[in-house]
């Protein structure tokens, strides 16, 4: 096992560099997951509705329905209480000082109760503002409720007192809300699951970057044409040599996989080996094999250390971005996801999501998870096959160096 031992020695010589990388990745992960956790906790415990700035012009004052709408809105939005000219309103909308303008025309109350479309509300919303949509929804909700009561309960709506009663009924209805509370346990579980999902997703970035660096730094030493030729002159069988190289690289992959997962367990203070953790461990192990074979391929392609560093960063970070490590896949564009589906990281993230679904939803089929894992294994095998092809080509090129010498002559 001379080659195997030498590989470990060579890895040992790169230990400082690899340790620095390892700690940087781990610190980043701890930091990012802690931010994610604190943001989610705040959001879950302190929900406050957004109140858009709304400017109301009520030309139908005195009508209980129209006045009721203005009153309802003033309780649920931020009313801009200054007189504005038409141009000033447009400017205020453009500069987003107000987000929604509502003009209630004369006779709107009558028209609404008579189900007439002759008099309509005039609404102007600031473009691309979600808060304006919220204001629009409030208006719509009020109008629909008024119409509902008018249709069902009241025959005669021209009487002022009847209208006031209708508006009161509407207000009572709109004030009703369903109390919602989060139990502490659910809140904690959901939050930590999300953090864990992110943590394991981030793990792909760390695994790929560190393993590419580690494997290339070792592989490139043994694929140098001089060293390779020298080893082929020795009595070590070629198969044995390849096996030792493979075992050495596999040990590296397993070592880093264990270390990274240990850090994840420490970060989340979760040492239970339930079905979810086992699936996540299996997924990260399969991804380690993918990164290992990718590192082997890159190591065979070039022996330049600078190129290895560059490729490790570009591959690790680039694939993480397009595959949904930092941004959830649901938020990524269809084209990006289509491109990402040709990368192993995409399927790794997919497998994490499937693992969470399988363990949280009853009766969920395991087929998708197996497909994600199988595709990752296919990537690993493809990279390995490619690296063998590159290795053979390199060997031929090395042996053809005499040819070059002859041609020169």
């Amino acid at each position, binding site marked *: 096992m*001379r080659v195997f031992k030498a590989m470990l020695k060579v890895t040992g010589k790169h230990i400082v560099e690899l340790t620095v990388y390892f700690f940087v990745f781990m610190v980043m992960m701890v930091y990012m997951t802690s931010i994610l956790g604190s943001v989610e906790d705040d959001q879950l415990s302190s929900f406050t509705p957004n109140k858009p700035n709304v400017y109301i012009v009520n030309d139908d004052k005195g009508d209980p329905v129209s006045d009721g709408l203005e009153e309802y809105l003033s309780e649920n939005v931020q009313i801009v209480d200054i007189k504005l000219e038409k141009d000033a309103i447009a400017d205020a909308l453009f500069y987003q000082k107000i987000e929604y303008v509502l003009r209630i025309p004369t006779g709107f109350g009558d028209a609404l109760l008579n189900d007439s479309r002759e008099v309509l509300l005039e609404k102007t919303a600031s473009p691309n503002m979600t808060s304006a949509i919220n204001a629009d929804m409030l208006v719509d909700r009020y109008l629909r409720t008024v119409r509902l009561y008018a249709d069902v309960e009241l025959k005669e709506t021209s009487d002022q007192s009847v209208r006031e009663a209708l508006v009161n009924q509407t207000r009572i209805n709109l004030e009703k809300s369903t109390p919602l509370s989060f139990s502490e346990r659910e809140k904690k579980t959901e939050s930590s699951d999300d953090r864990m999902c992110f943590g394991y997703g981030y793990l792909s970035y760390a695994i790929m970057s560190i393993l590419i660096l580690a494997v290339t730094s070792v592989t490139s*030493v043994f694929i140098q044409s*001089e060293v390779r030729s020298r080893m082929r002159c020795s*009595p070590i069988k070629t198969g044995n040599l390849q096996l030792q190289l493979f075992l050495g690289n596999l040990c590296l992959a397993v070592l880093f996989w264990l270390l990274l997962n240990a850090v994840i367990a420490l970060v989340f203070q979760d040492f239970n080996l339930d079905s979810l953790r086992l699936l996540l461990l299996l997924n990260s192990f399969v991804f380690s094999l993918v990164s290992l074979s990718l590192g082997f391929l890159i190591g065979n392609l070039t022996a330049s250390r600078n190129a290895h560093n560059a490729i490790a960063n570009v591959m690790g970070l680039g694939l993480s971005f397009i595959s949904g490590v930092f941004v959830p896949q649901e938020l990524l564009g269809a084209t990006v996801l289509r491109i990402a589906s040709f990368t192993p990281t995409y399927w790794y993230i997919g497998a994490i999501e499937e693992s969470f679904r399988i363990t949280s939803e009853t009766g969920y089929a395991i087929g998708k998870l197996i497909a994600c894992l199988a595709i990752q294994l296919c990537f690993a095998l493809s990279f390995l096959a490619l690296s063998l092809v590159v290795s053979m080509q390199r060997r031929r090129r090395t042996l053809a160096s005499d*040819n070059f010498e*002859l041609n*020169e*002559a």
Partner: protein
Amino acid sequence: MIVRVKDLVKRYGELTALDHLNLEIKEGEVFGLLGPNGSGKTTAINCILALLQFEKGEVQIFDQKMTPGSYQIKKDIGVVMQNVAVIPELSVYENIDYFCGLYTSDRATRKAQVEAAIEFVGLNDFVKFRPRKLSGGLLRRLNIACGIAHKPKLIILDEPTVAVDPQSRNNILEGIKKLNKDGATVIYTSHYMEEVELICSRIAIMDKGRVVAQGTKDELKNMIQIGEKIDIELLDRMCDSFEKELLAMPFVVDVLCDKQHIVIKTQQDSNGLNQVLNYFASRNVALGHVFSERPTLNDVFLEITGRELRDGNGNGKVE
């Protein structure tokens, strides 16, 4: 016979790198392979080591057919490649230990062998150094130590002194002589004729993939017409006036003139120096420096191929 190469043919597409090469290397020899770049020396070495496949012929080492799977034979071969083959991350000691370990599995034996190799190449003060900290000469010595540490019976050295300072070169050449004295058979290729003349007991001159001449250095030099080269400086005359008369002499093979400097090549066993000196004395020519030397291997190559080993005019790089 330690190495027997029979009728070896190796082609790279249209180009024939080895053209029916035949070599026989006996036990205890230091066998030199000499030839310009592209003559096929390294290709021959690679074929002998089964690193290259060849179209025709056979290679036998220790009277057994050599193939890529001849691991028993490989155990007794030490190889020093033309390019330094060491692992940059490992120290001098670790490198020698690693390459020695490919042959010797027993730890105690290997330790003794590694220490002996370090002593042999004189790297005792550098055992903890990484290769990149070593000078060119020391690096070459490390390369040699990695190739010979396991005490092989056959050592193949492919131009081990390229880009090495004279002191390191002398150390390396002395080391090769010592290895041979200790019982190893050596195959040696070099760019330097002087080295080959100095350490090789037999020499094969290669050109265009063929052995054009083979034998001891004296046998090779006796193969050609020239027996002596006389180099004379004329103090008071230009040499042009004597060129025709000198060429007309029966023992003179060739005359090269350059102003007041003349080189006269004479036949074997012609006692040319005396006759040339008498000729100039009879014409009252004052002579400055006078040198006489036996023909070099370059002269042998020149006469056989019509080209110089060291020329660079399209027939190969300076060698």
